[in-house]
């Protein structure tokens, strides 16, 4: 690893941790959400430094998208409008802090005391191709399991958050010819 790589690594690491702290530090909901986005972008760039091109970029892509949506939920659900009056929305602050610090100390001790094996360095060429082949060949089971879980998530998410079901839209006997929606869709249903 070159000097530039080291400098970038440390800069990104500091940015990732500091913006992670900022998530629970700042008063503004928008700032908290986008601080988390910055933390994820920093980790995504870390992955790029570690030669995982596809995974690094996909982390940035997914997390920026998710935080854009998250900001909307924050503002929608925080209630009592903390955007206008900063307030503390925490419980057990001191205990949580102690637990977090103890966890970090334990993890750090484990990391520093474990005699890590000197593994062979990973290949730097064709990593994305290798990932694609692993997904479609030797590790296909992982994706096969993930896909029904994803479908189940979609169904569970929709059924939990559904505001108006089909009986609201099509009437009690489901015989309404056109759905009764407060906002009509563009396909003309």
């Amino acid at each position, binding site marked *: 690893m070159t000097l530039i790589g080291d400098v970038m690594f440390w800069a990104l690491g500091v940015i990732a941790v500091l913006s992670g702290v900022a998530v629970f530090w700042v008063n503004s909901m928008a700032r908290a959400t986008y601080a988390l986005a910055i933390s994820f972008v920093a980790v995504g760039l870390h992955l790029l430094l570690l030669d995982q091109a596809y995974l690094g970029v996909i982390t*940035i892509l997914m997390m920026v998208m998710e935080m854009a949506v998250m900001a909307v939920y924050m503002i929608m659900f925080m209630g009592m409008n903390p955007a206008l009056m900063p307030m503390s929305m925490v419980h057990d602050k001191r205990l949580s802090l102690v637990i977090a610090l103890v966890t970090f100390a334990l993890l750090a001790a484990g990391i520093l005391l474990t005699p890590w094996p000197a593994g062979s360095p990973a290949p730097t060429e064709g990593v994305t191709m290798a990932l694609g082949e692993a997904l479609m060949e030797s590790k296909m089971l992982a994706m096969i399991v993930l896909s029904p879980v994803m479908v189940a998530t979609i169904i569970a998410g929709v059924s939990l958050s559904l505001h108006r079901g089909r009986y609201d839209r099509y009437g009690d006997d489901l015989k309404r010819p056109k759905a009764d929606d407060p906002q009509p869709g563009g396909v003309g249903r």
Partner: protein
Amino acid sequence: MAADSLLWRIGGGGMLVAALLKITVVPFGEWTLFDFEAGLVWFNAMDVLVWAFVWLVGWGGNSAHALVGGYRFLALAVAYELPLMFALIAPAIAAESLNVGTIVAAQSELWFIVWMPVAFVIYSVGVVAFSVWGPFGSSLGSDIAGGVAAELSGVDRLVFFAGRYGVLVAGAAFAVPLFLGGGSGAFLPEWSWSLLKTVLVLAAFVWIRRKIPLMRPEKFMEVGWMLLIPAGMLQDLLVAMVVVNR
């Protein structure tokens, strides 16, 4: 409650940065600024940044109209982004690579637009939409006093709109290696063909600006999910079947 000028400035300046970062993976002839292994995903990641930036401009200005514009863009974004992703997958499947240069090389015999017209149309819809352009410009609409840009003035306004045009240009430039055979063409050198095609695609986008009526986000959402996503998936299926039997 004061305006959040930090987030506001990040959003306004970020558009231009996202546009420039998109251009970096586009090959012009033999030159590519950033010949990245996963260039296609890189482009996609940069256009997701536009979500954040447009909303931040809307939020940071501390103005009701601007915020309504920001929400309109996010609602629209949910509808155009997934079809756009499915459209981007099609050339990647055909070229068996995420690298933009390899995708260009795979079109030496037949341009992808010939057998992926649906993906090209969906891609164009996505580009026009993430540039807050023409039929998808409701978040900059005059019915909400300029929407996201309501509070922008002076240099901030210049940079934001430069970024918006930049994103449109980047989208047009990226369509060339993706669907239009990159720099392939007769007589002229490759880079000039890339530029020429980019200008043509861009001209089509600019021409379309006033030709199609404004799409309301809540109506377009259903169009995106009910029409564009299935169409994109069918296109991908077709491409995959062709590639498997090749």
